[in-house]
């Protein structure tokens, strides 16, 4: 396709879309009589409703249905796909890795974000210091993976070859042998998790910093006058005051972590025992072409996400209600 063809597609899309919306608004504007508002609301909702039913609800139901069929979606096999997920050693490893991600990432990212938010709060460099930590949020998971792959890069230790990855250079500087980091099982999982922590700490810091600033001044002042030191202040005033925000951050990061795919795919492709559910879903569905297992993994993801989201939304309401 030439650039002109592509632009042509773009123009067609804009024209088609504008025509649809124009028609909806035009017809809605003509509606008269007692039931006018009913017709208008139907017109206003129809485009979104159509897309959501055809593109989200039906596909989701279809995937649930397919998860009970074999790899080509022809023979009904009951729960055997789910049994496979929970019994086959490779897939059990995927579940273990996912558990590692979900436990470690939210805790460390939140802890680092919180500590940093407290440390830079009301200092001269606050906004600059925050921007440094927050910037990774704008970078794609793919870009972040490349950045960290470079940090982990390994060159065999022979002759005059120098390390170009920072971590291995450190190992050499302190007199150790360089290590092919991404191959070290199961520690390589932690190296991948680090990328996610790097991205999410900025999110945690932003939300928590806002929560810290919302603590009324008279409370902190009073605590100070009572002789409350910085450490005690943190544990007895700051932490309890921002509890709801803390829960929101923890659960939000967990949800993101459950769906993490880009990092694993870009860093290792799921090799060396680093696959997680979202990555395994992609491999099973589009590489191995086992639609049954793929669908079952997607459904599993769904089932794991729901309780966290429900809890998250409840807490978020509490935060917003203040």
């Amino acid at each position: 396709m030439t650039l002109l063809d592509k632009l042509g597609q773009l123009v067609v899309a804009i024209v088609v879309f504008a025509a649809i919306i124009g028609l909806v608004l035009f017809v809605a504007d003509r509606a008269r009589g007692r039931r006018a508002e009913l017709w208008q609301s139907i017109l206003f909702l129809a485009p979104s409703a159509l897309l959501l039913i055809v593109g989200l609800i039906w596909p989701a139901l279809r995937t649930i249905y397919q998860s009970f069929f074999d790899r080509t979606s022809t023979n009904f096999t009951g729960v055997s796909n789910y049994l496979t997920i929970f019994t086959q050693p490779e897939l059990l490893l995927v579940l273990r890795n996912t558990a590692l991600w979900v436990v470690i990432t939210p805790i460390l990212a939140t802890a680092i974000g919180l500590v940093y938010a407290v440390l830079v709060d009301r200092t001269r460099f606050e906004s600059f210091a925050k921007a440094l930590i927050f910037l990774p949020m704008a970078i794609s998971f793919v870009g972040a993976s490349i950045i960290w792959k470079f940090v982990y890069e390994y060159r065999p230790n022979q002759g005059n070859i120098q390390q170009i990855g920072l971590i291995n250079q450190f190992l050499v500087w302190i007199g150790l042998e360089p290590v092919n980091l991404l191959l070290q099982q199961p520690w390589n999982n932690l190296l991948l998790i680090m990328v996610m922590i790097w991205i999410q700490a900025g999110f945690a810091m932003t939300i928590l910093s806002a929560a810290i600033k919302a603590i009324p001044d008279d409370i902190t002042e009073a605590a100070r006058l009572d002789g409350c030191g910085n450490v005690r202040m943190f544990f007895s005033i700051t932490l309890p005051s921002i509890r709801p925000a803390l829960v929101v951050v923890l659960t939000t990061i967990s949800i993101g972590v459950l769906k993490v795919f880009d990092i694993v795919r870009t860093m290792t492709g799921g090799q060396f025992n680093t696959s997680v559910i979202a990555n395994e879903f992609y491999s099973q569905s589009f590489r191995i072409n086992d639609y049954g297992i793929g669908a079952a993994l997607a459904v599993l993801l769904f089932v794991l996400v729901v309780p966290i989201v429900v809890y998250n939304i409840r807490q978020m309401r509490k935060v917003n209600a203040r």
Partner: protein
Amino acid sequence: MTVIEDVAGAKPDLAAAATSPSAAAKNQLSSRWASAAALVIAVLWTIPTFGLFLSSFRPERAVKTTGWWTFFGDWSVTFSNYTAVLFRGGQPLINYFVNSILITLPAVVIPIVLASVAAYAFAWMKFPFKDTLFVAVFALQIVPLQVALIPLLQIYETTGLGGTFWTVWISHSIFALPLAIFLLHNSMHEIPAELIEAARVDGAGHVRIFLQVMLPLMKPAIAAFAVFQFLWVWNDLLVALVFAGGTADVAPLTVRIAELSGTRGTDWHLLSAGAFVSIIIPLVVFLSLQRFFVRGLLAGSVKG
């Protein structure tokens, strides 16, 4: 609560406490440690990006044989990595860059327009089952998009849309709708009812109220969602890979760079430059529209 009551009585001590030499010294000491700790985190968080950024300007030989920290002993700078990765080779990155732009624009605009119309209906019109429908839309936010991918792909194949930009535009729009409707509804709902009533009295219908009263007031909310959706679409890999991954005609930057990382994983002069080509646009958008992004961030945190 006792803490607060104490404040009034203790007020006169405020000045004394603040200037007491031992307290000041203690504060300074702890703030010095605090600054050091903050500095360590800031450096750790910045160095990886900085190293790759520096490498993208170093000559190929230097990048491949020496660490980026040796740059400070040998100040050679070149743009050839960028020209190489952008314009040379069988699949120059510039094409993917164009694709990313072509994918992102409609994928941001379409859901905003559709959602603002739907959000208006939810906020200001009366129709049966309104609350039930709204809760249903809200609940759809939790569906992970993995669950929808394969059946959606089959739909595109049977309708002949497979492998075109339409697949990515439509998919991103669908996945964005629940959040967009929810967010825009919330801020439309906050508009005072008197304003709508006044317009009605003047003889304006829903369409005119939507276009002339509501949309201008919705600018901040729309901007917040637009920034969020822009970063989401530009940085997305999964949707692009599934629907547009097979062909260089429509694949965006993320797909190509992930591919480069797999096939040319040791060509760090190209990878570093390529990564920054993909990072620069969202970074600029993010830095210039940061305040909108922070708003959209929390609201949209469970998407995907």
